[in-house]
C-alpha cells in the first residue's frame, strides 16, 4: 500500500526558517489537514511537498523513495492545485481541461464529466478570462477529475467557492479517499469528508 | 636613469602613468569598498539580532 511521509523537513523563505523538523506519514485513504495563520509557511510547505521547492533540510518520501529521486514518476502520481488556478485566460474552459488531460496522461472522455460535476458545462466554450474567480477556481479543481492520481495536494481549495460548490468538492474528496488515495490540504474551515483517518498539523507563524 | 627621464618615460609618460594610475585606483577601490561595507553590514546585523531577540521575548 502507498505511503507518503516526511522526516524532519525544514522549509525556508529568504534564509528565514519557516517550518522545521516536520515529520508525518500518510497512509492510503487518509487526509492531512494543515492549519496555520497567514504567513506561517503553509503554501511554502505545500510547494515543497510537491517538489516545486527544495526543502532546506529533511526528506520527503513516496513509498520510501525520495521524491526528487523519483522525479517524473512522482509527478505522474501527484496533482497540485495551488493559489494560482493554472488556467489559461485565452483558452476556453473545455480547451483548458483538454490540455490538462493530455499533459497528465488522462483520458479525454473524462473532460465532459468533470465539467458537469463542477457545474461548468454552460460556460465550457467561453474563454476563461470572462469567467468569475469562483468559476475559474472550480475549473482548476475540475483538473483533479480528468487524470488518475494517487496523491492530491490542495492549497485552500475551498477559497472563493460558494456553498454548494464546497459541498460538491467535499463529495469529490470523499469519493477519492474511499478509493484509497491520499489528500494533503490546507484550509481555514473544517472539512467534512469521509476520510479513513484525518491527521491535523498546525504551523505556528 | 634620472628622475625627469623616468617621469617622461621616453615621451610616453602620459600613457604609462595614466594606465598605471587607473589600474592602481581600481585595485585600491576594490579593497576599500569591502572594508567600508563590513562596518555597515555589522551594524545592520546588530540591529537585526537585537530586534530578533526582542521579538522572541
Amino acid at each position, binding site marked *: 500500500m502507498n505511503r507518503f511521509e516526511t522526516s524532519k523537513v525544514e522549509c*525556508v523563505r529568504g534564509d528565514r526558517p519557516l517550518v522545521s523538523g516536520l515529520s508525518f506519514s500518510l497512509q492510503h485513504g487518509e487526509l492531512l489537514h494543515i492549519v496555520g495563520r497567514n504567513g506561517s509557511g503553509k503554501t511554502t510547505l505545500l510547494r515543497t511537498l510537491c517538489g516545486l521547492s527544495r526543502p532546506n533540510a529533511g526528506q520527503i518520501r513516496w513509498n520510501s523513495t525520495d521524491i526528487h529521486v523519483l522525479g517524473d514518476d512522482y509527478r505522474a502520481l501527484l496533482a497540485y492545485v495551488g493559489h494560482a488556478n493554472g488556467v489559461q485566460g485565452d483558452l476556453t474552459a473545455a480547451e483548458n481541461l483538454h490540455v490538462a488531460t493530455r499533459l497528465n496522461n488522462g483520458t479525454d472522455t473524462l473532460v465532459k464529466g468533470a465539467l458537469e460535476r463542477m457545474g461548468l458545462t454552460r460556460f465550457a466554450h467561453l474563454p476563461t478570462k470572462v469567467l468569475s474567480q469562483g468559476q475559474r477556481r472550480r475549473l482548476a479543481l475540475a483538473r483533479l477529475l480528468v487524470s488518475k492520481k494517487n496523491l492530491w495536494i490542495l492549497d485552500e481549495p475551498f477559497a472563493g467557492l460558494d456553498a454548494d460548490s464546497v459541498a460538491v468538492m467535499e463529495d469529490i474528496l470523499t469519493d477519492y479517499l474511499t478509493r484509497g488515495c491520499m489528500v494533503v490540504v490546507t484550509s481555514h474551515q473544517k472539512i467534512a469528508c469521509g476520510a479513513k483517518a484525518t491527521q491535523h498539523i498546525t504551523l505556528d507563524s | 636613469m634620472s628622475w625627469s627621464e623616468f617621469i617622461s618615460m*621616453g*615621451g610616453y609618460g602620459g600613457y604609462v602613468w*595614466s*594606465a598605471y594610475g587607473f589600474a592602481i585606483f581600481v585595485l585600491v577601490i*576594490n579593497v576599500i569598498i569591502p572594508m567600508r561595507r*563590513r562596518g555597515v553590514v*555589522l551594524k545592520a546585523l546588530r540591529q537585526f539580532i537585537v530586534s530578533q531577540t526582542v521579538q522572541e521575548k
Partner: protein
Amino acid sequence: MIYKKYASPKNFYPLAGRLIPWLGVLTVLLLAVGLYWGLFVAPTDYQQGESYRIIFLHVPSAWMSMFVYVIMAAAGALGLTWKTKLAEVLASACAPIGASFTLVTLVTGSIWGKPMWGTWWVWDARLTSELILLFLYIGFMALEASIEEPRRAARAAAVLALVGVVNIPIIHFSVEWWNTLHQPASVSKLGAPSIHPSMLVPLLMMFIGFKLYFATVVLMRMRYAILEREKHTRWVAEVVGTKAQ
C-alpha cells in the same frame, strides 16, 4: 569529513579572518617588487619604447578577468549541485572583482593602443571579446541584484555564469573570425613585443601578485556576505555580539 569542517560557514569566518592579513602583506610585497622591476629594471623595447611597460598590468589583468570568471562559474556549479552556501557566496563575491579586472584590461589596453594607432578604441579581437566579457559580468551582477531571495539569486546567477563560461570560447572564436574577416590592412593585432627574458620575471610576479590580490579581496567580501546569509544562526549572533563591545 574535512570538507564539512572547513566548508561550514562557522569555521570559514575566523579562518578567513586569520588568512587575510598574511595574504594582504604578500600581495603588496609581490606587486611592489613586480612593478618596480617592470618600471625600472626591464630594458626598453626597441620597437615601442617605454609604452610597452603597460603590459605588466594589461596582460596579467586580462588573464585574471578570464580566470576569475572560470572560478565564478565553478563556484556557481558547486553551489548548484551541493547547495553549499560558501560556494554561492564565493561566486557572488567574485563578480565585482572580475569586472574590475576586465575594466582595467580594457582601459590599459586602449591606452596602450593609442600611441600605436592614434585612436583610443580599436576593434581588436582581444579587446572586443574583453568588452563582451565585461557585459557578461554586468549581466551576472544585475541578475543577482534584482532577485530578493538570496538562494534563488545565487542559483539563477550560477546558471548564467555556466552558460557564460561555455559561451566565452565561442564568442572569442567568433570575434577572432570577425576580426580577420574585416581586417583593415593598417591595423596590426595588438602586437605583443618580443618578450625579453628579463621582462618575463616581473610579468610572472604580477601574475602571482594579482592572484594573491584576488584571494585577499574575495575573502574580505565573503566574510561579511556569509554573515548576511547566515544572520539567523547563533554563531552570527555571537560574532556580531562580540564586535559590539
